[in-house]
């Protein structure tokens, strides 16, 4: 779609300088006649549709815009806003860009900056990750706008995380599709034939609407596809001309399709019955869940199934699937005793039933060991099987299962529960109840062991991650709290010490393990919690923090209350051991330089002052804290700040893990 142009002066009024520049190019002898696009070149090499910007063009791009010519009629992007508003999207985390200036203007003026409300972000990766975190609390997707090339490249890592974590995000990339008429200079660098190609391997669907009606269909379609399990991000290319054209010029009778949610795909009835038969007759059934509980109801269903079978549940933590206070919540070791394992939305079934030891044996491939007994029956319900792409292989190693249902686990659970009820023989009910008693005892013993482990290094400096977690708990336990960042890098202490029973107590990790997710996703999750009056607490690693700390400003700017506690171990700890392992395997001493870890793995010398960094962006902050006895009083102050509606950060210098 072409941006409409006055033949004498570019419609893009502020680009009057560009028009002058274009004239100058002609005067310098491009070979093109000066009167319109249809003129033919004469005796000169063919030039590209746009030339590199010279100084005047660049100046026009960054200079003060002059008055623009007035459009007649409503803008196309006003209609786009009408479409967007039908889907009740609350927020638009976004870094502004010229390729979507048309819809930007419509959103804040015509749309009143409500549903969606524009949230200014300092980086596109932060914007997408905010959408990611928000969804895991709210269960509703957000949308973002990005510059078609550079912005989408910035956003790509966060899109991949959302893909791997099965989270819907609606990404719209501004683009000047018509190369013959796009403004010269920067807009050309920021345009492409097919901007969506860059993220096509890790989005569920994408489109490039070429008319407003096409946009209406594609936006509603994109929303529906994204929100049908498996949830995934979707992308739309948003042509600049389409945004800026007045509606009447198209001569279209526009309408907005009604959105009706799709029914999640449930498992085949015969397969469900057979799975129920295996589970009901098993001596030691085990349930393993990763991203099984899409909604709060998923947690309830999983509890019902587990209690029906008195079967232990291993929660792999992609979501908060099962309360950690329940007597049937057990560690992964129970898989080794199972005769039937049912895996629900497992990111990696192979690694659930196999161990991998990265020790350089087997010609450097490492050891592989089965975790299960021979003959163990395996059942899988996984919606991801309905959507597998080739290039990015996040589906992990192939695992043969006895019953495989390409279906949504949560949608299948009601039928599975009923089938299990019908399949349990009367003479097995007593044995099943007895199984539960054994797990009650084991659970109590495990809790004691966990607390004994937490006591080790209680007074350590750097501060132990167990102590940090335990010190924080009394300050939040009486609040409706939500852990919006992952505790995985802190030895899972929060998940082991804090009672987690609600779906928003634990949101899981990034999905693709792209570092830089945690901080912006936590801000997004805290945004969703704000409307629900919840207290958001974010356990934050230092390496992740430094990818795009500008999201701190977004949180302060938009008054998103949250408590961030730094797990400041001053290193990229995951990589420390990789380099150490390689050094040992090659029988070489790991070179440390002047640091406490192999060269290239530490974040020290100079040490980063996270409290000052946060304060500079409008956060209340304290630290760095090195004495564990100072934690309680500092947390108390920080919690009061957050309760008043502001974000607060406490920097704590910690043990590595």
């Amino acid at each position, binding site marked *: 779609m072409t941006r409409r142009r006055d033949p004498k002066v570019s419609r893009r009024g502020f680009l009057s300088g560009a028009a002058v520049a274009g004239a100058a190019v002609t005067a310098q002898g491009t070979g093109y006649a000066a009167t319109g696009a249809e003129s033919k070149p004469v005796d000169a090499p063919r030039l590209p549709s746009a030339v590199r910007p010279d100084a005047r063009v660049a100046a026009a791009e960054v200079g003060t815009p002059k008055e623009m010519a007035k459009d007649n009629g409503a803008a196309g992007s006003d209609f786009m806003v009408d479409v967007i508003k039908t889907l009740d999207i609350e927020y638009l985390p976004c870094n502004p860009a010229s390729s979507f200036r048309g819809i930007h203007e419509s959103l804040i003026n015509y749309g009143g900056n409500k549903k969606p409300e524009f949230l200014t972000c300092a980086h596109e990766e932060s914007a997408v990750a905010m959408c990611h975190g928000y969804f895991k609390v709210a269960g509703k997707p957000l949308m973002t706008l990005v510059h078609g090339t550079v912005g989408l490249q910035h956003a790509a890592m966060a899109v991949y995380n959302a893909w791997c974590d099965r989270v819907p995000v609606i990404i719209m990339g501004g683009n000047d599709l018509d190369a013959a008429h796009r403004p010269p200079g920067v807009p050309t660098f920021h345009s492409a034939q097919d901007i969506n190609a860059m993220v096509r391997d890790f989005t569920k669907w994408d489109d490039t609407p070429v008319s407003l009606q096409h946009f209406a269909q594609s936006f509603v379609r994109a929303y529906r596809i994204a929100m049908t399990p498996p949830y995934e991000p979707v992308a739309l290319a948003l042509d600049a001309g389409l945004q800026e054209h007045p509606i009447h010029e198209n001569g279209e009778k526009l309408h907005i399709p009604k959105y009706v949610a799709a029914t999640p795909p449930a498992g085949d009835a015969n397969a469900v019955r057979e799975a129920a038969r295996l589970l009901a007759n098993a001596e030691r059934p085990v349930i393993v869940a990763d991203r099984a509980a899409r909604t709060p109801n998923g947690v309830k269903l999983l509890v019902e199934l587990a209690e029906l079978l008195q079967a232990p549940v291993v929660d792999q933590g992609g979501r908060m699937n099962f309360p950690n206070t329940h007597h049937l919540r057990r560690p992964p070791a129970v898989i080794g005793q199972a005769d039937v394992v049912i895996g629900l939305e497992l990111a990696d079934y192979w690694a659930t039933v196999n161990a991998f*030891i*990265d*020790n*350089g*044996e087997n010609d450097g491939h490492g*050891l592989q060991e089965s975790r299960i007994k021979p003959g163990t029956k395996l059942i899988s319900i996984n919606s991801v099987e309905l959507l597998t792409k080739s290039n990015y292989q996040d589906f992990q190693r192939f695992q043969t299962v006895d019953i495989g249902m390409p279906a949504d686990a949560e949608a299948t659970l009601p039928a599975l529960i009923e089938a299990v009820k019908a399949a349990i023989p009367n003479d097995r009910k007593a044995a099943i109840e007895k199984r539960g008693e054994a797990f009650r005892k084991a659970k109590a013993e495990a809790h*004691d062991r966990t*607390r*004994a*482990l*937490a*006591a*080790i*290094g*209680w007074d*350590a400096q*750097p501060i*132990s*991650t*167990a102590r940090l977690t*335990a*010190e924080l*708990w*009394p300050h939040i*336990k009486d609040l409706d709290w939500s852990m919006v960042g992952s505790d*995985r*890098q802190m*030895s*899972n202490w929060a998940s*082991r*010490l804090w009672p987690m029973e609600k779906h928003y107590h634990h949101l899981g990790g990034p999905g693709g393990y792209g570092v830089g997710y945690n901080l912006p996703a936590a801000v997004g999750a805290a945004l969703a919690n704000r409307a629900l009056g919840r207290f958001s607490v974010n356990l934050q690693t230092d390496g992740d923090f430094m990818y795009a700390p500008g999201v701190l400003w977004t949180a302060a700017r938009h008054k998103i209350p949250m408590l961030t506690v730094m797990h400041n171990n001053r*290193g990229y*700890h995951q990589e*420390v*051991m990789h380099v*150490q*392992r390689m*050094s*040992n*395997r090659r*029988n*070489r*001493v*790991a070179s*440390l330089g002047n640091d*406490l*870890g*192999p060269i290239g793995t530490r974040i020290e010398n100079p040490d980063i002052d996270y409290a000052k960094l946060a304060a500079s962006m409008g956060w209340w902050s304290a630290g760095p804290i090195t004495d564990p006895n100072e934690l309680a009083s500092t947390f108390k102050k920080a919690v009061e700040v957050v309760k008043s509606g502001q974000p607060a950060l406490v920097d704590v210098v910690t*043990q*590595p*893990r």
Partner: protein
Amino acid sequence: MRQFAIRMGLAALVAGLAVGSLGPLGSGAAWAASAENGKLAFMKHGCFQCHGTLGQGSVVTSGGKVLTDTQLPYESFQVFVRTTNRAMPPYSEKILSNDDLADIYAYLTSIPKAADYKTIPLLNQ
């Protein structure tokens, strides 16, 4: 810094007692071991990265294994470090000398046993 010096002094004192208690369990190197040097070696060789500065371990990086107050005999400790083929990579003599290894063992055995969690109010909420 002063606090660190006191802690190191105490660690050395306790280490001396601990080394003395190695008795027949200890090898020649272990007899001469220094907990103070062991703490430095524990840091220098990156042991603390997975096991924590006090050997408290981690479910993520040490498989939950705790080295604090280890009851493992020195010989077993030495064999494990030299030959393990599990998640922890083996440390050859070229990478970690026998003296350093003995010092590390002395350091680990010098760390006081953790307090009973029942005496820590924050762990009994």
